[in-house]
């Protein structure tokens, strides 16, 4: 396999000062990405907002008609809808931190310029991840507004969903960024999407619950971020239990924090050899 120029694997261990981002410098990266998004969203990105609604129509309103008794006492449409808030955020973060970051880094060589200013790799990763999570939240909020407007949200707690989507967005983004910083070739994204994102989308409890399935399915699902995200959004939309929300929130926060140093290391090794 031929590697992209500069591919450097995981890189070496870094001192703490090379891992902790400077908020001011990370913010400059966030602003750059937001500036570009604000130009593009009305054009090229518009269809990406529609994705979740096709699933809602086909499965919630289509297939759901045949699920007469709903699931766990909830009408099927209402069961599916909050999960789509979570998955919209996941898809947004997955695309942003794979193809978009890859092109900025390897094709446009924008990071070469950025890293020859006072911005350091940890600021760059933090700014990109924060932006990606912001964008994911925007997508999640769009779905939230629509499903609430058509009456698929039964609990007022749903108003608190956006900050949790932001946290989930951070988690998805760090995972996507880690993959991007470690892959030697763009072709490998097919593995990320086909073996990672798509199965997660289908098997994280958005479309069916785990209680009728063998126990190991839920165990596997527990290790995926989308499962926790869906549990939070569905809980908030249908009536939350504090303990459950807390556990899922902690899972997302811990994974995000533990994983963050990996792309920082890999990016530094790759771009500052």
């Amino acid at each position: 396999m031929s590697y992209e120029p500069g591919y450097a694997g995981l890189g070496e261990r870094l001192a703490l000062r090379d891992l902790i981002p400077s908020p001011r410098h990370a913010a400059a990266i966030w602003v750059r990405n937001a500036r570009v998004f604000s130009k593009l969203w009305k054009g090229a990105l518009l269809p990406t907002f529609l994705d979740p609604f096709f699933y809602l129509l086909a499965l919630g309103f289509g297939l759901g008609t045949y699920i007469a008794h709903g699931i766990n006492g909830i009408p099927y449409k209402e069961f599916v809808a909050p999960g789509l808030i979570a998955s919209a955020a996941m898809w947004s973060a997955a695309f942003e931190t794979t193809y978009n970051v890859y092109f900025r880094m390897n094709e446009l060589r924008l990071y070469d310029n950025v890293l020859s200013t006072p911005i350091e790799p940890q600021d760059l990763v933090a700014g990109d991840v924060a932006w990606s999570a912001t964008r994911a939240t925007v997508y999640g909020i769009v779905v939230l507004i629509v499903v609430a407007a058509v009456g698929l949200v039964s609990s007022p707690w749903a108003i608190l969903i956006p900050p949790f989507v932001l946290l989930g967005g951070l988690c998805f983004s760090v995972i996507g960024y880690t993959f991007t910083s470690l892959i030697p070739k763009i072709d490998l994204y097919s593995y990320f999407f086909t073996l990672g994102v798509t199965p997660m989308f289908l098997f994280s409890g958005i479309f069916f619950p785990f209680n009728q399935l063998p126990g190991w399915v839920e165990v596997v699902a527990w290790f995926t971020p989308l499962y926790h995200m869906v549990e939070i959004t569905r809980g908030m939309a249908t009536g939350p239990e504090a303990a459950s929300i807390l556990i899922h929130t902690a899972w997302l926060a811990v994974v995000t924090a533990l994983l963050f140093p990996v792309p920082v290391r890999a990016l530094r090794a790759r771009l500052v050899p």
Partner: protein
Amino acid sequence: MSANGDVGPAVLARRLAKSYGSRVAVDGIDFEVPAGICFGFLGPNGAGKTTTMKMIYGLARVGEGELRVLGMDARRERRQIKARIGVVAQETNLDGDLTVRENLVQQASYFGIGAATASPRVDDLLAFSLLTDRGGDRVHALSGGMKRRLMVARSMVNDPELIVLDEPTTGLDPQARLAVWRSLERLQRRGVTLLLTTHYMEEAARLCDRLLIMDEGKIVTEGQPGALVGEHVGREALELELADDCDPAALLATIGERADGHELHDGALTLFADDAEELLRSLDHDRFPTESAMVRRATLEDVFLRLTGRSLRE
């Protein structure tokens, strides 16, 4: 503008070396770039120029030895160094999704300069690079020369004391190159230290107060452009196209010490001397027939080819 005159050289390298895996890119070089001058790095492809520049502007870690930029240690004080220098990379890496003006405003934000402070400076930079009426255009719409001028303008947003330019005019037409040269000359007059790499000898001769030639990771020679020509090839060159029945070895034997040196390549013989006219007259044209003979001034190109050879570097 440049306030570092009292803290020594803009760049100081001692036994500086850098390898990528088993490939040695820079092989223990020493040099000093005095503040306020234009300093050139010449050398064939793969000589180690770009790696040296990248170590200076923070895109390659220092391998071995010592590297100080504006008095700071390039290993430990990357962020502080980068805050005070400007970079024009070899590859054009402007932000294509942004306009010309936004590229400069965005670059300023990377230096912590807010939009309000940046705005008048951006106006100045657009005027400086003759892009005032293109401020609202997407970068894609610019010609190659305009993109290069914007790269130079972008390197100035933080009012740097030192600007590193890696092949700033490669691929430009003569007019565009001239425009870049003019902007660099204006920077020089403002007292900014310029450090540039180039393949173009006339560029080096025109812009650089001092230069060095690198080959295979090492420094081959260093000095003022004019002095280097005098030292290595003499003042003039005599170019002879030898006839088929002319024996170059015998010809060179009769010339002996009268030439300061020579280059022989496929029947084309270049002789260097302080008075090439005189040397031409003294040759035995019956014994050593030539197709053509031309006397010209010796140039930096002669020095370069003499020291780094004529074989292709891929």
